């Protein structure tokens, strides 16, 4: 299967490490991810809280431009908006007609959208990934955190299981790590309230970190730029506000997978993480002291 890659705005900024590690993993697997030319923002929460038609038209512009090829997406929020637009356009002729006027062409709502987790686990398959693992993440206990938008609502995203997804757990197990059973896989981190009302994020993200810690993990793996940023960049603020100590590195799952495939720490941008992962990775024998450079 061939794909065209939709990075989304975060992957060119705050989630550059997600972008870089995604391409590093793809290259190890021989998976080609050419970037969709002149893609535009999916509109995110700002568009769907303001105007439902604009919220469908912005993703549709990109889905139409993909020309029937499968769109590969890393950001969970973009994935949600692209799938939501498809759901509205394919399911409602009136929406389809309005969107056609806005994007300048009749888009049918049928461009396939696949998240990286689906591509890696279901399209490529764990057997091929296992062959690419050179340095198993032995003894690394991981809480796989999916957040809201990959699996909900299931009628729209049709991603894994809405309440208990396991694709990331399967990948981490294939990479040699130990994914744990824990109850906050799909709880909300507070998302974009990081900017407009951080008290929401501090409380919700604290609950996620506390639950991961109680499950006895070494680190958290994420698949969403907002989840990663809230759990990682705000972790110190959360510790201060709620008088706790977490010190839990929060990776993108692609960073861990890349390390297992033999990528260097630089290739997966470990230096971009706020909670430093080096002590942990050295203790587990995954990276040497040279990673800190």
């Amino acid at each position: 299967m061939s794909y065209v890659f939709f990075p989304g705005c975060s992957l060119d900024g705050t989630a550059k490490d997600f972008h870089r590690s995604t391409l590093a993993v793809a290259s190890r697997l021989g998976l080609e991810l050419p970037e969709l030319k002149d893609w535009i923002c999916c509109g995110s929460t700002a568009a769907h809280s303001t105007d439902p038609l604009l919220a469908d038209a912005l993703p549709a512009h990109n889905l139409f431009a993909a020309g029937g090829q499968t769109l590969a997406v890393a950001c969970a929020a973009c994935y949600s908006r692209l799938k939501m637009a498809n759901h509205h356009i394919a399911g409602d002729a009136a929406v389809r007609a309005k969107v056609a006027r806005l994007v300048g062409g009749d888009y049918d709502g049928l461009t396939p959208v696949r998240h990286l987790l689906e591509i890696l686990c279901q399209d490529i398959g764990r057997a091929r990934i296992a062959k690419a693992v050179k340095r198993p993440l032995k003894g690394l206990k991981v809480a796989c955190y999916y957040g809201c938008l990959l699996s909900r609502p299931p009628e729209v995203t049709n991603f894994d299981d809405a309440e208990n997804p396991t694709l990331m757990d399967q990948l981490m197990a294939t990479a040699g790590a130990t994914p744990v059973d824990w109850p906050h896989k799909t709880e909300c981190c507070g998302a974009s309230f990081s900017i407009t009302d951080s008290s929401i994020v501090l409380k919700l993200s604290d609950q996620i970190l506390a639950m991961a810690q109680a499950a006895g993990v070494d680190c958290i793996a994420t698949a969403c730029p907002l989840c990663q940023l809230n759990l990682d960049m705000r972790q110190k603020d959360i510790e201060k506000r709620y008088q706790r100590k977490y010190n839990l590195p929060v990776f993108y799952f692609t960073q861990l997978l890349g390390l297992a495939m033999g990528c260097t720490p630089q290739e997966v941008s470990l230096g971009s993480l706020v909670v430093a992962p080096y002590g942990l990775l050295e203790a587990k024998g995954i990276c040497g002291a040279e990673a800190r450079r």
Partner: protein
Amino acid sequence: MTAAIVELEEVGGRLGAEVKARSGAAPMSCYQCAKCSSGCPVAGRADLKPHELVRLVQMNQREAALMSRFIWECTSCQTCVTRCPQKVDIPAMNDALRAMSASEGVAAGTSVPLFNEIFLKSVRKRGRVYEMGLMAAYKLRTGRLFEDATKAPMMLAKGKLPLAGPRVDGRSERERMFREAAEGGGE
């Protein structure tokens, strides 16, 4: 004694119908089981719980619904609609109520509409969001200059904030798209 039977479609038809027309959500189908509120991440802090907001809509309590803080504290996490036995799309309903609340100028003490406006302006002009420009504009316009003041230098050092903003071709097509969307899609 004769029980008073409240005909919801008559009492609350107007706001319920308006929400449905704008969003496709069907608040009139709710039978108040409150499953939405037990899974809602912000139900414990907002002024209303989601099932209470739906009830307000059913009873045509327009002012209370549009002025509630809850509609601005909803994180659009989609938990409620995923679990709702009647599939009442509360996140979509909230989107409609937010748009109505913002356009009628009654949004309760929130900077979310301003953030959305700055965000969409960046998309309209550049085609993409320039996170650094977005943050700077938001801080200037809210006066919250020193909140998270240490974050930007740290993010810069981590390579997470490029100094140059993106710019995608097709500005005139985007201008047309935004204009026509605001006009309702050429109806």
